């Protein structure tokens, strides 16, 4: 049993004026985080990764599934219990500017913690505590205290926010894209700071869209796509031996300094794509992401009850590879979706009568199979 345990966590967003249409954002995501462990949650925009962070932080409710922390169910917590929960679980977000109320000085984020959790503490003791945490995040108190947020650099702002979390008896930190808005020159310092915290026993959920950052820092990696886990496991295994076509496509797209983009045929079977003539056709290169995006456009979204079906833009055969081959056998045949059953007129039905349970069942993710110890991959559709 891990410290934080996610058990089939799903989230369905209502959209439309009457909340008429339901959109699954997270589909039965399960994994765990231990003390002193960094788990990176990697996904592109719209994959639901930030939603997952918010669910763990109890900022948005899950539609189904269970989040437990140290064996206790988190989803139902409120009032005092939630107050206690935040003593151990904290978050830092993407946009440091937005994390500070521009009207107040930056250290108000400390002050709020003091008011709520350390009301009885003497001033001196509190100040000593603040100094200690600032030291931990390698900030000089004189540089950051009593200043307005805009007087601090992005790196300082983010570190200050981590320090705020450390004031509490924090055991788990949700770091949601915390360095994507920082300049390259300060990014690594914040990453290294997280590493040193992890070494002291902090569990960290590192949410990012940047594979290199996730790779650098994490012990485990979870790859999320359209709200479902496509691949997860120990970081060296996932990055060293990616199994899922999607993971591979992501990896080949990462720009690297010393290696040019390897040709990758997005439309066909990823792993076996031969670098036929080396001349990459950007048109086809562009096609795959477009298919992904098409989901958001009018035409496609109308026919996509679940992104699962929209994602079928590219016809694909299951990936080769030892693990996935096994997976293919285990995979159930494709189930007809509501949309397909209804033919062209699905949306009427979807708008009127589809229930949460139906959407959840409909959007159930493909099962995960173990392709090597400590490395799970989703059966490809």
């Amino acid at each position: 049993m891990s410290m934080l345990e996610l058990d089939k966590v799903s989230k369905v967003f209502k959209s439309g004026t009457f909340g008429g249409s339901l959109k699954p954002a997270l589909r039965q995501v399960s994994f765990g985080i231990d003390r002193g462990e960094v788990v990176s949650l990697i996904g592109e925009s719209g994959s639901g990764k930030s939603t997952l962070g918010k669910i763990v932080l109890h900022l948005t409710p899950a539609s189904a599934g269970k989040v437990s922390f140290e064996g206790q169910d988190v989803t139902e917590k409120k009032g005092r219990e939630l107050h206690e929960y935040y003593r151990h679980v904290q978050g830092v977000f993407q946009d440091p500017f937005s994390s500070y109320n521009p009207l107040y000085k930056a250290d108000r984020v400390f002050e709020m913690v003091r008011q709520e959790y350390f009301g009885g503490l003497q001033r001196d003791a509190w100040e000593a505590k603040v100094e200690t945490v600032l030291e931990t995040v390698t900030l000089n108190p004189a540089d950051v205290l009593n200043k307005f947020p805009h007087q601090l650099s992005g790196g300082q702002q983010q570190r200050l926010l981590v320090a705020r979390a450390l004031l509490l008896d924090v055991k788990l930190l949700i770091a949601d894209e915390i360095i994507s808005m920082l300049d390259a020159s300060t990014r690594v310092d914040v990453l290294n700071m997280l590493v040193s915290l992890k070494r002291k026993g902090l569990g960290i959920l590192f949410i990012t869209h940047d594979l290199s950052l996730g790779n650098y820092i994490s012990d485990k990696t979870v790859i999320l796509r359209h709200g479902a886990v496509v691949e997860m496991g120990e970081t060296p295994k996932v990055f060293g031996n990616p199994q899922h076509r999607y993971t591979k496509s992501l990896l080949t797209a990462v720009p690297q300094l010393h290696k040019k983009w390897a040709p990758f045929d997005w439309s066909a079977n990823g792993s076996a794509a031969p670098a036929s003539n080396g001349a990459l056709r950007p048109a086809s290169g562009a096609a795959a992401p477009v298919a992904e995006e098409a989901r958001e456009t009018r035409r496609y979204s109308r026919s996509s009850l679940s992104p699962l079906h929209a994602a079928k833009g590219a016809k694909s055969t299951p990936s080769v590879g030892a693990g996935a081959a096994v997976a293919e056998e285990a995979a159930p045949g494709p189930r007809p979706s509501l949309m397909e059953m209804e033919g062209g007129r699905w949306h009427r039905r979807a708008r009127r009568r589809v229930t949460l349970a139906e959407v959840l069942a409909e959007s159930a993710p493909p099962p995960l199979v173990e392709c090597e110890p400590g490395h799970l991959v989703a059966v490809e559709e």
Partner: protein
Amino acid sequence: MSDVDQAATSSAPVAPGAPLTGVRAPGAAPVGGAPLGRKAYSGGRRWEFLYFAVRNKKLVLGLGVEIIFVLAAIIGPYFAPYPPKQFVAPAFLHPSAKHLFGTSYFGQDVFSLLLYSLRNSYLVGFLGAAFAGVIGLGIGFIAGWRGGWLDEILQTFTYIVVMIPSLVLLIVIGAYLKSHSAFFEGVFIGVTTWPWVARAVRAQTFTLRQRDFVDLARLSGKRGPAIVLKDIAPNMASYILLAFILLFGSSMLIAVNYDFLGLGPTSGISLGDMLNLAELWSGLQLHLWWWFIPPGAAMTIMVAALLVANVGLDEVFNPKLRET
């Protein structure tokens, strides 16, 4: 409510349909000034505002004129040459040194009447603005913060209030009531003019709610009401100030309408009342222009000064409108 409304509130700096139609209310520049957020953080903002405030001609002019009128309303009656409602001189006197604005049909000194009337107009304006402000802020905050079905209900309610023209409603109510007080008038204006404030506040609360600092406050164990008051409302302070000014001006104007129709304070004296009497007692036909021109002119200047000050303030808060 509808996407139409949202498109409108989110895309432009205007709270459309402020009772003073089209006056630029405060708008998308909600959050502490610049809509683009980040840029607003550069520089010590409070001092910056003050710096621009004292240099803004419109603000200084508008505020200056308004202060003169407010002072006249407060201390004017102590210096008024004559008691307001009594016969102090023959009727129909032309303006002269003795009677600055002449005398009315009833031999009242129009200038004294005017000085006394300012108070009521300001009082009603203030009451109306205060009530509308409180209701609008309350409903806007609740709808924007809670969202969901409560939001739907409040929005529908807001919509209905918009649909019912308040003057017409007051005429109907007024017909049944024997007497009116300035207080009733102010409250009534307040309870019918809040919707546009509520809409704008709701839209802004909605936007601000999604800012990370709100999440951070929650993670610090703060509860909803505290977050709305300490984190969200202060970020709309400039907007709230501008909205209040607009409400103030529009309340005074609406009050003139009411008073003119004889629905104003029964006992009181107000600018609208002066117009009403002048109209009823053939001031027009008798060419007693000094009876009805001054009160309206005073009201026009009072409201215009507010509007000009409002524009000035807006320029102070929103760098985009500052003249370059």
